[in-house]
């Protein structure tokens, strides 16, 4: 079975700003910071994978490359066997995050969702049907008529997740979504995602600093300095994760 996401030897670096003096001295010289350094990973359909790592490990850069909002320098990045840089691949991935900038603060939640749905080719009638299960599962009906600017971080996260699930993507990336959810809502989100993984084969990449959250996933990827240094279930990567974060077994 083809994986939902296949990444091989992915490299990405960002140019560093240079002072005027440095530019005048050596105009052609380029300085850059390596964000992804030969990153390799695979996520199967229906699999929920946690991505953990220290700040600056390259987790968000990886998400941006997969979402097509940053171009890789080299390597392979395929979504449903489509190159992530291709326009067609954009419909196969969705990103949810706590302070989702895709939700304009002056719009109500339903207006923002409607815009997003139309941008992804959904008709209004389809939108209502596609939205209903997520709203039901997250108990978010009451939020629809409220302006995005007035929503709390957790409420915005719920709407962001509803938005991300609208287009029925193959891969859903959650960028630290759980950090703003209360324990009950975090449990509901887990249940929602587990059901989608099991029933429609949704692949989930959960970027998190919450090791307890990571432990509940099918698999954990430990990332450091732009590459995946350990992969497996929690017990298999625990040593690597603890070493990376300087934790002991009692932590």
């Amino acid at each position, binding site marked *: 079975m083809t994986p939902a996401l296949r990444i091989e030897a992915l490299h990405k670096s960002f140019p560093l700003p240079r002072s005027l003096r440095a530019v005048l001295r050596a105009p052609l010289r380029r300085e850059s910071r390596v964000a992804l350094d030969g990153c390799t990973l695979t996520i199967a359909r229906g699999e929920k994978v946690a991505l953990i790592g220290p700040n600056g490990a390259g987790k968000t850069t990886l998400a941006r490359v997969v979402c097509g909002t940053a171009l890789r320098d080299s390597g392979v990045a395929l979504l449903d066997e489509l190159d992530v840089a291709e326009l067609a691949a954009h419909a196969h991935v969705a990103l949810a995050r706590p302070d989702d900038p895709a939700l304009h603060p002056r*719009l109500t939640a339903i207006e923002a969702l409607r815009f997003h749905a139309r941008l*992804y080719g959904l008709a209004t009638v389809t939108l209502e049907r596609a939205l209903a299960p997520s709203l039901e599962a997250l108990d978010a009906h009451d939020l629809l008529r409220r302006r995005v600017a007035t929503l709390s971080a957790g409420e915005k996260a719920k709407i962001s997740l509803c938005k991300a699930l609208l287009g029925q993507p193959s891969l859903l990336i959650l960028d630290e979504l759980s950090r703003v959810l209360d324990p009950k809502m975090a449990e509901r989100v887990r249940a929602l995602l587990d059901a989608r993984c099991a029933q429609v084969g949704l692949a989930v990449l959960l970027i998190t600093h919450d090791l307890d959250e990571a432990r509940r996933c099918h698999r954990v990827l430990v990332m450091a300095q732009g590459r995946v240094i350990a992969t497996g279930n929690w017990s298999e990567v625990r040593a690597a994760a603890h070493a990376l974060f300087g934790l002991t077994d009692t932590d």
Partner: protein
Amino acid sequence: MARVDEEDRVDAMAETPRIAATFAPSLLRTCAAFLRRDALIDASYRANWIFRVVAIFFSLWSLFFLGRAFGGASPFLSRFDGDYFGFALIGVAFTVMTGGALSGVARRVRELQLLGGLEAIFAAPVAPIRLVLMLALYPSLLSLVQAGLFLCFGAWVFGAAASLAGANLLAAALIAFLTLAAHLALGVLSASLVLVFKRGDPLAWLLGSLTYLLSGVVYPVEVLPSALRPLSLLLPATHALEGLRGALLLSATWGALARPIGVLLLFCVALWPAAALCLRLALKKALRDGSLGQP
């Protein structure tokens, strides 16, 4: 009991059929989405609409009194029977109309950069050039409506109706369309610069200033020193204003308007490929530098 509810909820969710589309939306649907969204955002700033109408009246009053003070006396206005108000009305309506196309796109791109929504929009399965044009749609249409209101108030409230009687409206509409198209291409070029350099919109500023100075917005081009006149021909605004005044004030025939229409068409043909290329290069640079979402 609560546990059962939770399971029911999850089951209901999982039973949802795969009904969502995974194809790129049609052009019409994308247009409607952006128009509706931008109109809703604009409508949420209610006081802004009052200021817009008041600004139109203030501009018209200023022009009206200028016309009373200086109209008729200038030999440069003899072609227009000394009607300065009618002459300037077209000029200012033109700047209102092109304002949205010229600087509206760059302004929208910048707003989204600051809000962080640019990455989210470019992550959609829609071609980037189409997305940028969609961002320009609402400001361009709004400018067109404002220019229309400007002309209507000028005609019926400030008495310019007589000057506009017998206007070649069809030709004026075609010239307005070509003018918007040419300025929209310049707007896309300007937005490309904003994508790369972020703050500042040097192209729109330069073009706006040169247009006001050289194209005959509030005074005829004939007033300019002979050394500057050839420069004015390099601006699409000069030809657009010549065509619009010919069609609206002088009731010019299609034959008489062929030159400005032809030149505007040439501007469109030359500017659009350049604008598309610049946008593509700017977007590629922003994606490579990872700066699309940076303010």
